[in-house]
């Protein structure tokens, strides 16, 4: 998860590097730190550094980190020859490394040699049963092969051991949503909210899922979580503001009328949206108003 400041910092660096303004190493380091997937850019700019002996030696020991980063980016872009070359360099430098072994197995994955990759991961896990990254590769492989139920199974097994891995809970929730298993997705978000109650993203996602399941009680709950999202974001979350409007509208349809509390919060949400659109998106203000009208909020 990336904050807005980190996102704009990344965007700035990315533009700078793309326009030959330098800062490639800072960009690559930021991508590494935030664990983002920018494989085509990482490949391009990482190779520029690696193919230049002066730039390479200026990195010192970080050179090997860059080889690893570029190898993974190359795998993602299906540039298998580049990946192979990077892995060879790392194999020479770190001959019995488990970390390099992991890259070799990922290369097998990228080639589509699933059975061999599975064997490689299993043997790596024998010596290292608590390696999170390798355990996750199993899930990724299942997903890549279209074996979604297998991915769910592996992911659940993973979470039994690494239950504090929030990204894994999110991944599982997203897989459940893609299969329309909303109750199971809701459970994942409940776990996340319990362990990190101050993160608005989880409240918002939970509200979206609960709204999608539907029914009066769920709409009431969704409304509460949209409200908590608004609180946690200081009123700045457009999706949550719309969420309030959708909930109060749907509740009114089911109960054949709008109670005063709902009238109040939907009025507040609508006003906040109008203020935001007036300021940042004035050409769409009238569209917003007619949308709110069709939800019977105005």
């Amino acid at each position: 998860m990336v904050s807005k400041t980190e996102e704009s910092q990344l965007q700035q660096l990315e533009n700078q590097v793309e326009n030959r303004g330098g800062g490639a190493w800072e960009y690559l380091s930021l991508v590494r730190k935030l664990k983002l997937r920018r494989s085509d850019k990482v490949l391009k700019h990482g190779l520029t550094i690696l193919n230049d002996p002066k730039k390479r030696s200026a990195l010192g020991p970080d050179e090997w980190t860059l080889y690893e980063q570029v190898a993974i980016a190359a795998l993602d872009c299906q540039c298998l020859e580049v990946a192979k070359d990077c892995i060879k360099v790392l194999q020479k430098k770190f001959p019995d490394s488990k970390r390099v072994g992991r890259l070799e197995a990922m290369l097998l994955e990228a080639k589509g040699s699933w059975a061999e990759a599975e064997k490689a991961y299993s043997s790596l896990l024998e010596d290292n049963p608590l390696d999170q990254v390798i355990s996750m590769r199993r899930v990724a492989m299942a997903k890549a092969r279209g074996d979604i139920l297998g991915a769910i199974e592996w992911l659940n097994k993973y979470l039994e051991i690494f239950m504090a891995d929030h990204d894994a809970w999110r991944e599982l929730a997203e897989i459940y949503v893609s299969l329309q298993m909303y109750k199971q997705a809701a459970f994942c978000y409940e776990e996340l909210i319990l362990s990190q109650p101050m993160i608005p993203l989880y409240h918002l996602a939970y509200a979206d899922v609960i709204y999608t399941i539907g029914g009066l009680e769920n709409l009431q709950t969704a409304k509460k979580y949209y409200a908590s999202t608004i609180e946690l974001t200081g009123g700045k979350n457009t999706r949550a503001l719309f969420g309030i409007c959708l909930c109060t509208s749907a509740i009114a349809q089911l109960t054949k009328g709008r109670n005063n509390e709902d009238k109040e919060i939907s009025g507040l949400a609508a006003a906040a949206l109008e203020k935001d659109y007036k300021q940042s998106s004035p050409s769409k203000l009238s569209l917003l108003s007619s949308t709110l009208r069709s939800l019977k909020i105005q």
Partner: protein
Amino acid sequence: MSNGGELRYVIGQNAYIKLILHALKHKTSSVNGVLLGRLSGDVVEITESVPLFHCSQIGLLPPLEIALIMIEEYYSSQGLSIVGYFHANERFDDLELGTVAKNIADHIYRYFPQTAVLLLDNKKLGALRNKKDTAPVMQLYTRDSSRSWNVANRITTKEPSANILLLDFTSSEKWNDIVDFDDHLDDISKDWLNSELFK
């Protein structure tokens, strides 16, 4: 009401290219979009498209409901209505119309029985560079009175040069300029109409 047996579907190149650029911008996730147009005799003319979402929660209702209301409102003033749905799967070789796509398509079908559902065919898209082809790189599905969506072969691009233009845009990485509804909800100053895209 015609069951779509004789209907042809024609998609304008701007609508067509926009959807594919959207898919190319978000290579690692599913994306979807709506098709706008009108029924004209025995042809469904798809003249516009709006890219919707790319986030992994593509199956959730709230953003979809807001998007559909806004899009219907905007385009009805131009005499256009929602005539179809576009979907691109997450995986390269997945050419199946999944349940999320079918559900959204079913919803649109209720309002427009001649709904076109277009699924991106990645292999065809990739092959464009080596093999000149004017056919759209999408699989068309239509629904008859049964509940199933069936593959149909009756879609063409309005302009025969659509794929050539698409290749042009691909090499200039034009997808960076595409804005979808997700982007708009994250930053309302972003224009989901993409009015400046082809200028």
